[in-house]
């Protein structure tokens, strides 16, 4: 399912003294079956933008097209459930939304709201809990006796069980330990590769953006600063650093190394393997030179 915006603008508290322009001039297209990362500083409007993707916020100007539905500014929309069924959002710190007596009931909550029958919902709960890497017996426990990391996984399972076509993730790994982080991000990537879904990841982590996304949107002060493939975005690391954004550590390392050696080692290293390969090649050529 494709998501497309045209001149989208959103103002908070419109027509009050608190009015505040959050995002403007947003023209993006997120194709079906894609992995898009949205990066930007806190306050750059990322979270406001993502709430438009399932019509939690409706534009104050411009329009957004979600699949076949078009939501225009000034038109009061009803019956948004079908949109929300197709676009699932995992919010920041999603464990705060858990409320049921058992994990199973909590995971079934979403699917049941969207008209799935109880048998199917329970089957989905089982499937989702395995996807997020938790044992089956956790289903009968109370979500409030779990650890923070487990609660996060359960909350993610709640959204996965809805089987959305577009999965929007707002910093899904914030506050987790490095290992849990990696596991969860790898799980999302596997899901993206194996199933017919697109993923929109809002993140601070340039490593994650470089590693997983095939398209990156950089937001700055409420509008799109730049967009393109990871190679295109990170080809100008200086630009990102000026915006106060980070670049992946492999690129930082490569920059330092090239400065020291006063020579390019070629291309951009977006992953550790990539970097290691280039350095090995460099060592190899130097050795050959020494022999000659």
């Amino acid at each position, binding site marked *: 399912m494709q998501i497309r915006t045209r001149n989208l603008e959103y103002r*908070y*508290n419109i*027509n*009050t*003294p*608190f009015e505040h322009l959050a995002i403007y001039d947003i023209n993006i297209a997120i194709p079906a079956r894609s992995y898009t990362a949205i990066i930007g500083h806190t306050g750059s409007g990322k979270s406001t933008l993502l*709430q438009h993707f*399932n019509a*939690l916020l409706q534009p104050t100007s411009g329009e957004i097209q979600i699949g076949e539905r078009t939501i225009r500014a000034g038109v009061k929309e009803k019956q948004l*459930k079908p949109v*929300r*069924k197709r676009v*699932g*959002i995992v*919010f920041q710190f*999603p464990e*705060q*939304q*858990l*409320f049921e007596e058992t994990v199973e009931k909590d995971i079934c*909550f*979403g699917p*049941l*709201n*969207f008209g799935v029958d109880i048998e199917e919902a329970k089957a989905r709960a089982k499937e989702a809990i395995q996807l997020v890497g938790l044992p089956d017996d956790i289903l009968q426990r109370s979500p*409030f006796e779990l650890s923070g990391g487990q609660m996060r996984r359960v909350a993610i399972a*709640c*959204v996965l069980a*809805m089987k959305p076509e577009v999965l929007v993730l707002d910093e899904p790994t914030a506050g987790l330990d490095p290992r849990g982080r990696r596991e969860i991000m790898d799980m999302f990537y596997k899901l993206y590769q194996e199933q017919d879904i697109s993923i929109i990841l809002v993140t601070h982590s340039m490593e994650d953006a470089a590693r997983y996304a095939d398209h990156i949107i950089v937001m700055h002060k409420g509008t799109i600063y730049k967009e393109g493939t990871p190679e295109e975005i990170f080809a100008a690391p200086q630009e990102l650093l000026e915006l106060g954004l980070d670049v992946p550590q492999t690129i930082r390392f490569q920059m330092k190394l090239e400065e020291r050696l006063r020579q390019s080692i070629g291309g951009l290293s977006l992953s550790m393997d990539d970097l290691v390969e280039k350095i090995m090649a460099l060592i190899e050529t130097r050795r050959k030179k020494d022999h000659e």
Partner: protein
Amino acid sequence: MNKIIFGRYIPVESFLHKMDPRAKLIITILFIAVVFLANNGITYALLGLFTLLTIFSSKIPFRFLLGGFKLLFWLIIITFFLHIFFTKGGNVIVEIGAFKVYEHGLRQGIFISLRFFFLIIMTGLLTLTTTPIEITDGMESLLKPLKRFRFPVHEFALMMSIALRFIPTLMDETDKIMKAQVARGVDFTQGSLKERAQSFIPLLIPLFINSFKRAEELAIAMEARGYRGGEGRTKYRLLKWGIRDTAAFIILLVLTTALIVFRS
């Protein structure tokens, strides 16, 4: 949620903002009493004039003020119609079927609605122009004499300031959890009354749990920083009574005298 302005503070520089919170509190309380003195056209006009003067000196846009109290105005309209239909006396003005609108009913309806209106605006302006911290500081200072009767004034003020401090936090959190649950297919606006009441469970339970957690964390943080109650604790912000506050009292005194003179 954003349209409700009751209990919110709007930071602007104005006469009303600069007044001592103690003066504002006392004047508001006195005003509530004084409103009941009015009983004829002239006295209500005087009250209206005073209210307008107060709005003007707060520098808060009139239209914004009216928009913010929209919900409460429904209450006023309902009271107005209740009086129109149920108060009898005087000549009949209009007759619609079985209903008769009497002169007294209309008069009473207008007066009571105005009374409501003045009270809402004045109490609203108090919170719009005074920060929650100023209000509690003012309260604490005003209630000090009660200490003699072993009333825990400081604890009371602390309780109030904590409650007020966490209202915006709670509002933000409500908004956040509401959105998360809407994204999971909850509909807060449709369905029967029972369904709607049930749809609030996924909102209320997380809110309660988070509040308890926060209360515990706050208590620990306060103790870790050596909080031991009000004994011997000094103040960072000192309240200052100025010429403005005395002036406001004189204006209220003039109003009260005028009301007593002109009331019938």
